[in-house]
């Protein structure tokens, strides 16, 4: 996936998950510093997924990539970015929010 490659290129360590179950498992096991989640995960919409995640304890800062011009942040600590993403802005947000490890789900 191009996004993961770009993030690695920026010097981040990237773990990737495909689908809801794997995402939840990795999110709770990996101690990622930031989660970047597509709002259109297979099997579940991203907003509900983030909500599910918070049942296992407070999740790390999460960036939700969505297709709506204005999508309401489901919880605090969630940043919504509209596709196509503004990479420069994404990198700025990551710089503020993150340690070196990112989970892309």
């Amino acid at each position: 996936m191009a996004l993961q490659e770009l993030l690695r290129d920026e010097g981040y360590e990237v773990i990737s998950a495909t689908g809801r179950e794997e995402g939840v498992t990795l999110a709770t096991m990996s101690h990622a510093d930031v989660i970047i989640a597509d709002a259109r995960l297979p099997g579940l919409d991203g907003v509900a997924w983030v909500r599910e995640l918070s049942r296992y304890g407070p999740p790390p800062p999460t960036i939700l990539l969505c297709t709506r011009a204005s999508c309401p942040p489901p919880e605090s600590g969630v940043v919504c970015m509209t596709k196509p993403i503004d990479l420069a802005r994404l990198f700025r947000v990551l710089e503020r929010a993150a340690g070196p490890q990112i989970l892309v789900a």
Partner: protein
Amino acid sequence: MTTPPIPHELIDGLEVFICGLDERGTILVFNRPCEHLTGLARDHAVGKSWLELFAIHERHDHVHELWSRATAGRPAGPYEALCRNGRSLRWQFSRWEQRHPSIALWAVGFDITDEREALARSRELERMVTLGNLVAGLTHELRNPLNGALLQLALAERHEVRKQGGLTPTLEAIVQATGEIRRISMLLDDFLVFVRPLPINLERVGVRRIVERAIARGGAKAQAAAVTIVLEPGDEVAAEVDPVRVETAVYHLLANAIDAASELDAREVRIRLVVRGNAIVIEVEDRGPGLPSSDAPIFEPFFTTKQGGTGLGLTIVERVAAEHDGRISHERRDGATVFRLELQIVGGASN
């Protein structure tokens, strides 16, 4: 038994068209609204054939059939026809022979032009909502592939920079393509505002104040184009409108006028408020070159004459007008183009 006189003072005062006819359809009674409609004085109309006056030849059989069906207790109709002056009429025919034996038939007509127009406007609005939902769905779907393409381009850009340094033709192409995708993305943002309208929110507000806000919003654009916006002096007018929508509509009218005015020496856009009957009219005037032609489909989505225009501005204005049961019109007057946004003073909202 004597025949009572025709109560002209009554039928002349009604806002319906009334004709009394004999069995062959010759006009015997012709009320004042009929005179206004046809431009024919009563004395000239009496004796003429109703069919010749109100029905085109091809439809005479249809009218005859309605006449034969009409009975005392049960009027026959409707017969809908377009008048020479452009009005639409709906006629009903009834028989009521006891009081006036010479009059076999009464033709009673209603002017349904406004009703028709309102119906057409609401159908158009309905169509736009349906279309809007479809397009909103499509717009969201488009963001995924656009995002994918943009990320791939960003990746390719990095590879190319590392491999070659300097500005290679490939790199140039990548940068161009990236710019194009950003442009599509901006278009989608504009478009979403248009297709997903928020619920209309009528408030009693000063329209002048709204216009001033729209002017403030257009200030930067006007300044960049060295165009002066003049709000003609006048009193505040209160009306029940959705202030956000009206401001947006006025802003789009202003933006167009600024673009037009920037093409010549008289760099001025004038805006004025006029109260006309139950309506408040916001007029935006520029002395630019005017529309390409009088029948250019300027209110159609994506119609634009400007480089870089999205072609949605006037579509949005038209929509705001429709949502307020108002209308948008334009004319060329003494070398100036005037767009006129007419809104009901007492809340006319159609959703």
